[in-house]
């Protein structure tokens, strides 16, 4: 079968994987590299559970063809803490991860990786988001357990951390 080699950086490490034309980034992450933290809730870009960062921007990996991320940098939920620690050596985890735990924003946890990545991306862009900005940013992320309120609170709690720069 035809195929090609893809080179990319995932969570800070260079990777080379064999892909087909139609291989998605989600398949590369989950099946190829074993980063199963990124979830597959629908495979067609409708639920948000597969959200990762491509060059720091929040993207749906299930509808991203792997060949389009050649040479790019991908961050998954497994790498979020490392990414944060590089910039904030005093922390072990991303503050949003701590906030999700503290605020009860996690139930079954299947939407959590996507929510966390999208929420953390929002905090990069808008360090102190208000409720509406949080709702807007997470509008494409489905959760069936929480009713969303505790997720909003978790993101808001990080945004409210004094005037400390969360970037």
């Amino acid at each position, binding site marked *: 079968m035809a195929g090609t080699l893809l080179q990319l950086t995932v969570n800070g490490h260079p990777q080379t994987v064999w892909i*087909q034309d139609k291989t998605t980034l989600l398949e590369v992450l*989950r099946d190829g590299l*074993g*980063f*199963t*933290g*990124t*979830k*597959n*809730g*629908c*495979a*067609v870009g*409708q*639920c948000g*559970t597969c959200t990762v960062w491509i060059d720091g921007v929040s993207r749906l990996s299930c509808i991203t063809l792997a060949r389009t991320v050649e040479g790019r940098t991908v961050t*998954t*939920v*497994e790498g*979020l*803490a490392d990414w944060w620690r590089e910039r904030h050596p005093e922390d072990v*985890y991303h503050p949003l*991860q701590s906030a*999700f*735990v*503290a*605020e*009860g924003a*996690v*139930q*079954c*946890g*299947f*939407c*959590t*990786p996507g929510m*966390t990545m999208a929420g953390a991306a929002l905090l990069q862009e808008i360090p102190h988001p208000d409720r509406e900005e949080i*709702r*807007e940013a*997470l*509008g*494409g*992320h*489905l*959760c*069936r*357990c*929480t*009713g*969303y*309120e*505790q*997720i*909003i609170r978790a993101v808001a709690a990080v945004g409210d951390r004094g005037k400390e720069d969360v970037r």
Partner: protein
Amino acid sequence: MSKMHEVEAKPTALLDTMPRIDAWDKVTGQALYADDVRWPHMAYGFLIRSPYAHARVVKVDIEAVRGLPGVLAVLCGPGSVAAYGIMPSTQDEHALAAKKVCYLGEPVVAIAAETLHQAEAAASKVVVEYEVLRPVLHPGVPKSHTALVHPEHPTGNLFKAVDLEFGDMAGGFLDAWTREDRFFYQGNNHVAMEPHAVLAYWRPDGKIEVSSSTQAPHYVQRELARALDVPDYRIRVVAPVIGGGFGGKSEAFPHEVAAVLLSRECGRPVKITLSREEVFYTHRGRHPVSMRVRTAIGPAGRIRAMEFDTELDGGAYGSYGIASTYYTGALQPTTYQIPAYHFHGERWYTTKPPCGPKRGHGTTQPRALLEIHLDRMARALRMDPIALRRQNLTPPHSVTVNQLEITTSGLAECLDAVEARSGWRERRGQLEPDRGLGVACSSYLSGAGLPIYWNPLPHSGVRLAVNRDGGVQVFCGLTDIGQGAQTILVMLTAQALGIDSQRVRVYTADTGMTPVDLGSYSSRVTMMAGNATLQAAERMAALLLHVAAERMGVAEVDVLRKGEDFLVPMADRITPWDDVVKWAEEMQGPLSTVGGYTPPPALGRYKGSGVGPSPAYSFSACVADITVNTRDGRVTVHHLWVAHDLGTPLNRSMVEGQIRGGVVMGLGEVLMEAQAFNPDGRHRGPHLLGYRIPTILDVPEIDIVLVGEPEPRGPLGAKEVGQGPLNPVIPAVINAISDAVGIDLTETPITPDRILRALHKQERGRAQ
């Protein structure tokens, strides 16, 4: 008097919050769900499903597939050795259809290959010939023999009819004012974010290992044993981390049986993961129910008698259908005193995906109609809807007409709370045009009083061990499907043993390692596994106290606990937990205790009395504040006030999460969601754009009030919270719409087109 606990509108003071023990794994990507689990050299399975809702299988040719690249095994029907099904009296399923397909999406052929793509590619080469039959889309006696879903079923397409009568119906309706209402409640799907997945391995020694996203490993083990004709003990079913269930993962599914069989064929572990579309076709969700209620009302608005008829559209197979049918009649009397009550329920086979239990199992639909009906009666009687309900509340510590034993009830306080919080008295009738307030009550079980298959054994078992490292292990068959059951066990164990929760590890959902717990359904886990855990922990605490007293040479009454330490004040001695544990192991060998829980016996002795009893019932009330846009038919929900009596809340953050999640799911059911089908039996939108669930942008302000007193039968006084708060939301919204614009809706979901149609009808009525 009972005490009112509150979760503030913008909750800040959650008192007894212990973070979930699995939260960190879930925010760091460490938690392994069924599709994340990999076993060495595993293969991938794929199911070929029927493209027709109803057809005879004429021929299946799988020969072309053998020898294709990567193909390891191919199987066609019936797959299972014997018919199986979750209810012992309705075993009507096979893993793969052999003679007939009865819903679009029913599995016909199973293929295992080296990769999923190879399995899918091979599937396209399989030839299945069908003789297509007319789909059966509605309950009712069919006109021709070919419209029988299961021709061998003795009562045709009527799966089951049940009929119950209590009290003096004739007397109740004699000379009484009566009202009759009808409603159609549409079916809907659980939409757990995690699609079902299974990984199965038929080992060379004949033992079978199954890791599956299931809410009930014990029942899956039992059903697999029957379907495969293998002794139960050879099968081990483990539930890894589960990404939500809501009832949708409560029984064995064709893909689970197929994965085991494919593994036997190819000698390798086989994984099958369902796509979102397959989940919609696998279904087992909320039954569509057509309902009729007629009530006789006496002076001062007291209910004298009620008849309630339900007709369930069951889909192609039995599933939990008998229980679902009885549940559509069981819990009406738990909220309101009904002196005479007649219930008739029918469940029909149709050629659609089988329906089963979804959060609120069978009680959600009749609750909607009952509460709408009460509002319409209140209107006719010129009574306040809350006042009418207060006239009829089932009192605490009473027995209902259908022999359900009610213990604690905070229903009156639930009504008080939502009335006060919503400003009901000041605001109702005084709102701007097209805005309205609606109210509804509900009640739910804290665990089903009887198991799915009759047996006298405990419903939940716990084995607790204390190790010489000072740590405690709790083994219990329960499944944490996201509701936080494992965390509750840790909290209860730490509390009962007087130790730090860090010492406790729980091992759950593994039929090969844990004592049986029947599973995560019917809101039973905190009540039953919680009580079993407390019993095991209290026995261990007594054992350690005995050891401590003996070693320190004093009577047990002279040993006190302070924190983790064992104190003998008169001898001024302090012995830490770790030392007492070592003493105990030295004296008694490895330390282990067990606990079990069996619900109190049900009072009813009639056929059907097994559905409805519970150790205790939760109660809830909801007020909805909405506006109807009369031009485009959209409903805006401004605010929901929800009061819930769950006895003692054990973990406020988790309680709040359960209530919010249930309430928002209810909002989806009333306004958005429909598991609906085209005339050819195709799902109208088997994906998350065609089937929309509430997003973060759809959620209104929700105020939660916790009321109630500790339930003596509950662990530390707790009752259920996982399902109850969903039910009142649906009728509260519908009643608010009636209050806002004066229309009486007749079916869910309340989509804009239905609102506009009802408004036009109202206008025509006025014009005449």
